[in-house]
């Protein structure tokens, strides 16, 4: 797929994510928008899957360790043909037509639902990478050539289980596992560097035995720098590089902007989990639609 078409899809993903959060009046917009290009690159270039058979064991699997980023994740799945449009309307809403414990609806954080291509249950940071390691082991045992992708966040990387999983992925030589760090430097309460010390990121993973592709750009040094996490050309070649690695897992460090695509909320820690007002929603949607028209006209 060519880059303008991917850009158009990333824009569409942002519109859908904004719509989902506005309609539910809750949800995590900032971290969905930072992952938009990563999600589109995965679903429209990297992953092999049959949208008509979401539960097929032949499909590649994406695990969303940053399970709060469902507005972006569900939007990508919808665009990829894995989720029907009607289901998007159920986002964060109780399904009052089924029995307790059963639901035909999209939870705020993803729950295992293979019929919709969701092979994991996340929302508690860090368990997604551990589950992805389990999935990657299962694929190796079954001798299937499927690949497991997992999107991590800088907040989730503060969980101890993440490092347990990182070490295990190396010991078990899981070269069918590719992790992508959506590095936007903002977590629930504040900036990462006002919460804890995470740096150096790449060196940590490298020392654990991962093939690390891409370099972290500290938040203070990012002004004006081109960010690889929103650059389809970089993402494509980085994923290709990851696929070629043998005997070890790979991590892509994708530098991103939280809230990317809606200038008013970009890099604003207030917008980790906040719903827009009607006025904001309409204004931002209009701007995104105008951008889509520009992309379609070949100007972006």
């Amino acid at each position, binding site marked *: 797929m060519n880059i303008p078409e991917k850009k158009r899809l990333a824009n569409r993903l942002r519109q859908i994510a904004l719509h989902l959060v506005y309609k539910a009046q809750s949800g995590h917009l900032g971290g969905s928008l930072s992952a938009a290009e990563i999600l589109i690159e995965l679903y429209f270039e990297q992953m092999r899957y049959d949208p008509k058979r979401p539960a097929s064991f032949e499909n590649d699997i994406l695990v969303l360790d940053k399970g709060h980023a469902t507005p972006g994740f569900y939007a990508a799945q919808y665009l990829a043909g894995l989720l029907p449009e009607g289901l998007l309307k159920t986002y964060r809403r109780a399904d009052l037509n089924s029995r307790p414990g059963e639901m035909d609806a999209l939870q705020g954080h993803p729950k295992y639902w293979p019929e919709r291509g969701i092979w994991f249950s996340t*929302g508690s940071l*860090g368990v997604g990478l551990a589950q992805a*390691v389990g999935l990657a082991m*299962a694929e190796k*045992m079954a001798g299937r050539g499927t690949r497991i992708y997992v999107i991590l966040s800088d907040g989730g990387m503060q969980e101890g289980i993440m490092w347990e999983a990182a070490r*295990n992925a190396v010991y078990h030589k899981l070269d069918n596992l590719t992790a992508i760090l959506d590095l936007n430097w903002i977590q629930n309460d504040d900036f990462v560097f006002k919460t804890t010390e995470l740096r150096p990121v790449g060196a940590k993973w490298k020392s654990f035995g991962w093939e690390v592709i891409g370099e972290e750009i500290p938040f203070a040094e990012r002004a004006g720098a081109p960010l690889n996490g929103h650059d389809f050309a970089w993402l494509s070649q980085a994923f290709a590089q990851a696929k070629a690695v043998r005997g070890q897992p790979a991590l892509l460090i994708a530098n991103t902007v939280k809230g990317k695509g809606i200038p008013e909320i970009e890099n604003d820690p207030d917008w980790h989990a906040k719903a827009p007002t009607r006025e904001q929603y309409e204004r931002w949607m209009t701007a995104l639609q105008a951008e889509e028209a520009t992309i379609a006209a070949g100007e972006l």
Partner: protein
Amino acid sequence: MKYLLDLARFVDEFEKKSIERRYVRDAFGEALCELGAQKDFVVLGADLDKSTKTLRFRERFGEFGQEPWNEKGRWISCGVSEAFMCAAAGGLAARGLKPVITTFARFLERGYEPLIQSLAIPGFDAFILGSHGGIATGQDGSSAQAIEDIALFRALPNVTVICPADFEETQQATRAAFERSGIVYMRLSRNQLPKLFDEGYSFRIGAGVELVCGQGITLVSTGETTYQALLAIAKLKREGLNPRLIHLPTVHPPDREILAEAARDSELLVTIEDHSPRGGLGDAVLEALSQAKTPRRVVKIGVERYAESGTPAELYRKYGLDAEGIAQQVRRVIVE
């Protein structure tokens, strides 16, 4: 069900130390190997595999990712990472491989939340072994003596909690657990336990076992405390009391019928467990009896405090779970 033991003979053999005693974890390890040849499952360990007795399974079915088995190995080393083990099990289960998680009961507690996220919420089938349960773990001290694990597991929806009392029962329970859907938590004692059951016994999930008949008082025990309760009953019978003993190998779901039946002719029920008296066997019995027509007094004996290092015998004496401790508490309740 009834499985009436010859109490006098049991006490005699126990006191002469001629009774057969075996590690229940060996029973688990053996059953696991036998089942491994018949069923498709994977076993995960976190560096306590010598103690949980899964090394035989590793020898026979190979270690995943390592020479010479490589990707055909069905035993997975997680390193000392219980949280990871419990979450990775979810990934394996998602692709149809039933996970068997093995470690000490205490360290499983560290994996509890990842287990909820990765196994319980998705509704997977999983077998979870918590070995070294209770203060009977002994000399390692309170850091290794789980007294909350049954309460934690009993709180999960769609769960089965089993605490077998001897070798034979552990083997049968392990086999039965593989036929059960949902999460099965098996809590084992670290110790060699005296033989209670022979091959004629037939373990059934959810079935309590009347081991000693009696009237007026019913003792209810599980796991390692069952043989201590037997010894206590022998003492009490000599004193003119006539307690019945019900062993509940399945703590959840408890056998409501056998408990209701016992409550019909017992003024008093005493539960005995090597676990906190809150959330474990005692509360399982109370919950079951709360639905019975006749209200009965239920006294719960358990471990109220974090204990210490010592031999299992010393600790059971100090914390009131040995035969004399149980008998004393029963006498005290009767006087009250």
